[in-house]
């Protein structure tokens, strides 16, 4: 049986405190790792997917490649063949000119939409590299993040019919809110949906580090 997407509804929304009822968001699994252990399939998937580029070339790198194709397949299986939509990755913490820039999510989305009418556009450009939010001490607000985002005007036409903003782990919802704000200013009539590989549950390692 194919895994269905899950909806961020009233049962779980308060775990992601920037999200509001009008934010339409879906997720595939729950990130629940605690105390450095990561046994469950979703926890392992996220760990492998986020492996730093510094580990490229090591045997463990294979796990990352496998995580990329697994996530792509999970998304692809849930999107109809004929669906017309635009996938937009939420930018990773390193900007494109950084040696550790990781295009893992763009690869997932390209794979998920290959041979289909959906497209992938890196509409949001991060100006400066930042420390991954889960490694830094300060908690930026969506407004802070927004100052570091630029819209790639060259990719804006034709206007998307529906946008899926995609990220690996939903924590507070801060990045999603900033990205959604940027896109909805440029495309006020386009429906913007959040899609996350996992949402972190409170008290997981993502909280300790966030």
């Amino acid at each position, binding site marked *: *049986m*194919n*895994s*269905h*997407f*899950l*909806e961020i*509804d*009233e*049962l*779980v929304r308060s775990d992601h405190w920037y999200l509001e009822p009008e934010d*339409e968001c*879906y997720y*595939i*699994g*729950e990130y*629940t*790792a*605690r*105390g450095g*252990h*990561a*046994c*469950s*399939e*979703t*926890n392992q998937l996220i760990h492998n997917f986020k492996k730093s580029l510094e580990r490229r070339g090591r045997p463990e790198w294979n796990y990352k490649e496998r995580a990329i194709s697994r996530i792509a397949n*999970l998304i692809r*299986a*849930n*999107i*109809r063949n004929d*669906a017309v*939509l635009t996938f937009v990755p939420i930018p990773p913490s390193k900007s494109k000119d950084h040696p550790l820039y990781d295009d893992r999510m763009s690869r997932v989305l390209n794979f998920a939409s290959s041979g289909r009418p959906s497209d992938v556009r890196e509409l949001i450009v991060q100006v400066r590299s930042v420390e991954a939010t889960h490694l830094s001490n300060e908690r930026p607000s969506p407004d802070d993040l927004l100052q570091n985002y630029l819209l790639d005007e060259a990719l804006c036409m034709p206007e998307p019919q*529906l946008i899926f903003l995609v990220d690996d782990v939903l924590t507070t919802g801060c990045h999603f809110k900033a990205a959604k704000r940027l896109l909805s200013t440029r495309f006020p009539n386009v*429906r913007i*949906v959040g899609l996350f590989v996992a949402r972190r*549950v*409170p*008290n997981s390692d993502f909280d300790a580090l966030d």
Partner: protein
Amino acid sequence: MNSLDSILSNKPISPLREMAAYEALWAHQNATFKTIADCFRENPGVMPSELVTEPEIDETLERVLDKIKLANIYDYGIRIHGSEDYPNRLRSAAHPVEFLYYRGCWDLIEAPKRIAVVGSREPTEDGKRRARKIVKMLVADGYTIVSGLARGIDTVAHTTAIECGGNTVAVIGTPITEHYPPENRDLQEKIARDFLLISQVPIWRYSQQSFKYNRLFFPERNATMSALSQATIIIEASNTSGTLTQARAALHQGRKLFILDSCFRNPELTWPERFEKQGAIRVVDYDDIRANLE
């Protein structure tokens, strides 16, 4: 907001509504784990919310949330068949559950080595001693100890695992909103906070019927406990013990079943030989367990 029907190939799951729908299925007078499992067998791929009406979901939701709030529980989660985090091992059960509640560290569900240690609610001193000894060795070998939080052997299994610095999972026969037996309240809360607590028991239905009917939930959870584990060890059990439900379930699910030699040596017990003929393993010393698990 329009639905994404023309975009998504599977209808997205609303955890809250599926929770209410599962509870609503159980609110039907004659519902049992078997009738509910049959219903899903006949309608493969269907979600609980597709088997009950919208007003039923709304009504049940309100009732269930009230019960949860009254119990002061804010840290629970759910798992539902059809989503990525549902443990497929549960499908080995004769009447697999479509839905369950959990509290604590879900990650333990996939601990690489999981073994259920179960037995009598009124164990002998020797039984308790044997349970402690085996759990200590299992923890030292890296096993997560799964049990049912009942009086007696289950309690010894959980507490010993925790005392030895190991991990434990409790699959309870009451809803997450109840504490049973009452003397295990602190243990249940500790497991819910630091380890993993699982319940398949519907909150609303349980609140509406007497203990006479609710006690039927106890043996039902043993099938789930067995399905979640790679093997079950029976420390001690009478001829009429609920523990034997788990023995039958383990063999039916193709899980290893270990029975302590002391059970075979008790002349009053008829079940050890019976299960041995069906494939259970007699445990004379700890190596009999280790050798059969690796």
